[in-house]
């Protein structure tokens, strides 16, 4: 094995990749394997399995693994007419491996409809629904590649709604939980089609990585045994082994520099001591997520690119999609102990593709049976995700009794659905608020499209219908309401063939700057139905193939 290499900032590497998450990690591995010299600039720290804990206070309350509101404040408003107020608006993984380290690891492929929905359903008033310049068939080989290379557990053919696949999953599904069994039985009673959840978590060990130990701390936490198939646990290690890829943590890229010819020359970043450096590179690939990628392009405005880099369309940061979906909790007579094991063991896709003429809205979604409430979260509204029924006293004898009774007996059914692309939904630079480095803070503008709320009501009704088919003693649903907080950061530098209506082309190259590529959630043209990470990684594998071909032909 080769020692990981280090480059000087004055070394003009072939590619500087900004961000090391679900896309950046994959591109680092693919491009360095293909012989290119690569530096990955990651704003967060380089943590490993030994650093990960079950410490809810550090991880959830103190944002050990995520963006930090005290130094990276954000603002929010519903529409461009409103003045944005300072509030925490989004969360993303801030470490080597990015959000793939702390995500729940639900690993759904997009279906064929997600790429061609505009052609199928026609225009939707108030949204700018568009077809992708690529189809499911174009991406299928890369979906398969991700599943096999990083390790995904699942059962091919178990869902009649699954799109075609060239290979089964590399390993069987993870064990079903009590919540999964309840979900499966109820769904079958209703004539629906539940199936084992595909998860980016190992059911069998792989070299250097343990199989899942069912500890139950997946969502929001890093996996201590390397069973969660983050880019950290998988491709980033492969990239380092090539001897051509340096992962450089604690580097906050704040500007992409260009020359008089309008070409990118490198990426300027602050190190841990807030000293600025310029890493020279022949080309830059931005994989900083659907919020930070557009922000970086906007921060990189200069005389030649007054509206921000690669923004001749004016669409950088626009068409933000979050995915949406209400949920419900239910309490059962006997203990489920669903705190054990991965968050989700059964899902269904019966409502993935709905007919807008029948339901009266455009969109679709899936349901899952989950328990992702760690103990403090379960008990607390202060951490914003309590598991107790509305009306339960917040302290005292009854509070304790409810905790004692419900914790092991609760199940959550969560829906995941479409967000339609609306131009005014966006990430932009806040004109007033600055972050700790003195640069404009992220401003989020978001108001759910009316169809998204109709879909939410539809999915909530399906959840309650499902729970009616169980022996639940008690159940309650979350309200269907407009969102003001983002987990999935999608669509903000959308892909397309027309430079007027998109930011990147099908090769992930920006229409305006020849040696600048973007690949992450921002590339998505539609939101899918709620689980975007596999698609982001598949796009990255495909982008690496395209970029490699262009580089070898001397076309970058």
């Amino acid at each position, binding site marked *: 094995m080769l020692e990981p290499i280090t480059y000087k900032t004055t070394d003009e590497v072939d590619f500087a990749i900004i961000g090391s998450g679900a896309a950046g990690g994959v591109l680092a591995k693919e491009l360095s394997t293909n012989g290119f010299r690569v530096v990955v600039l990651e704003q967060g720290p380089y943590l490993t399995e030994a650093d990960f804990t079950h410490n809810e206070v550090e991880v959830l309350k103190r*944002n050990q693994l995520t963006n930090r509101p005290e130094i990276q404040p954000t603002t929010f408003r519903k529409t461009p007419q409103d003045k944005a107020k300072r509030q925490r608006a989004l969360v993303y993984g801030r470490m080597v491996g990015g959000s793939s380290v702390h995500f729940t690891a639900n690993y759904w492929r997009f279906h064929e409809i997600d790429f061609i929905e505009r052609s199928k359903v026609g225009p939707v008033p108030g949204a700018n629904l568009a077809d992708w310049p690529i189809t499911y068939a174009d991406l299928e080989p890369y979906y398969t590649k991700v599943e096999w290379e990083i390790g995904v557990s699942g059962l091919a053919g178990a869902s009649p709604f699954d799109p075609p696949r060239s290979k089964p999953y590399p390993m069987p599904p993870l064990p079903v939980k009590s919540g999964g069994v309840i979900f499966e039985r109820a769904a079958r009673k209703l004539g629906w089609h539940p199936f084992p959840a595909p998860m980016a978590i190992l059911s069998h060990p792989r070299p250097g990585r343990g199989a899942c130990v069912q500890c139950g701390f997946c969502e929001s936490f890093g996996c*201590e045994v390397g069973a969660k198939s983050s880019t950290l646990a998988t491709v980033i290690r492969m990239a380092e082994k090539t001897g051509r890829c340096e992962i450089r943590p604690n580097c906050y890229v704040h500007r992409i520099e260009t020359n008089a010819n309008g070409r990118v020359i490198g990426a300027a970043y602050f190190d841990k001591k807030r000293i600025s450096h310029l890493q020279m590179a022949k080309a830059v690939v931005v994989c900083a997520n659907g919020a930070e990628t557009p922000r970086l392009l906007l921060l990189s405005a200069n005389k030649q690119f007054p509206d921000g880099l690669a923004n001749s369309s004016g669409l950088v940061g626009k068409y933000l999609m979050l995915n949406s979906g209400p949920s419900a909790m239910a309490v059962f007579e006997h203990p489920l102990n669903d705190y054990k094991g991965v968050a989700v063991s059964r899902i269904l896709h019966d409502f993935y593709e709905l007919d807008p003429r029948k339901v009266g809205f455009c969109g679709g979604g899936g349901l899952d049976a989950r328990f992702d409430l760690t103990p403090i979260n379960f008990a607390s509204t202060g951490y914003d995700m309590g598991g107790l029924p509305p009306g339960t006293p917040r302290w005292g004898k009854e509070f*304790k009794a409810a905790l004692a009774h419900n914790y092991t007996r609760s199940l959550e059914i969560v829906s995941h659905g479409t967000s339609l692309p609306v131009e005014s939904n966006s990430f932009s630079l806040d004109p007033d608020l600055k972050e700790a480095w003195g640069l404009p803070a992220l401003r989020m503008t978001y108001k759910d499209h009316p169809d998204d709320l109709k879909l939410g009501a539809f999915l909530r009704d399906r959840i309650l219908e499902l729970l009616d088919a169980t022996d639940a003693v008690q159940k309650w649903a979350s309200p269907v309401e407009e969102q003001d907080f983002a987990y999935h950061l999608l669509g903000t530098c959308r892909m397309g063939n027309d430079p007027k209506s998109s930011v990147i082309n099908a090769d992930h190259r920006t229409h305006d700057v020849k040696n600048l590529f973007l690949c992450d959630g921002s590339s998505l043209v539609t939101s899918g139905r709620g689980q975007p990470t596999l698609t982001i990684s598949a796009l990255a594998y495909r982008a690496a193939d395209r970029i490699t071909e262009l580089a070898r032909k001397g076309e970058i």
Partner: protein
Amino acid sequence: MNESVSRRRFLSRGVTGISAVWASAHWPALLAAATHAHQAAKSAPPPKFEFFTADEAKEIDAITSRIIPTDDTPGAHEAGVVYFIDRGLTTFGVDDQKTYREGLPELQARMAEMFQGKSKFSELSPEQQDEVLHSFDDSGQQGQRQRGGLRSRPGAKNFFETVRQHTIAGFLIDPDYGGNRDAAGWKVIGREREHMFQPPFGYYDKGYPGWEVAVKEATKEAEKK
């Protein structure tokens, strides 16, 4: 600083000294060692206070004991929540020091107005204590729950709300991290003190016949109809 924290340090030193690959391959053994260490530390003497005076600690202990009272099962007192908060105020909760420094005298002042001649919360009867706390708890019942696990609400700045949140954290946090002494809180909610589990997990998956059989049974059922 209590025993479990130093154990944690010991364990993490043990892991970082060797390769991550070795650690993950031997994880079950490491977990077993951690579990053993927990058992061994049970008889440790209570730590000293770092932030609170003895008098303050008694007051805070009394407040936490109303938030999660002791009945036929352990409460905040038995879980050593006051020690968790004390340590927290010199580490992760430094920003909350002012809330405690200013909030406790304010609570005692209100208490003295409500119950003449009393100056210490810990000397009131449980009913009187609840009455005082209710007067601080204007947010009342738990509101509608929202989805999303990572947001912390900015509003919860007042003293009682801060103590309430800290008490819940100190009662339910993984005992590795300075609270939930002897996993008392987890015993109350029925969470087993293990780091790895195996199916069957609960009542409803015990009799699950496996995916293929479940599919066959469902098909037969559908044909009958």
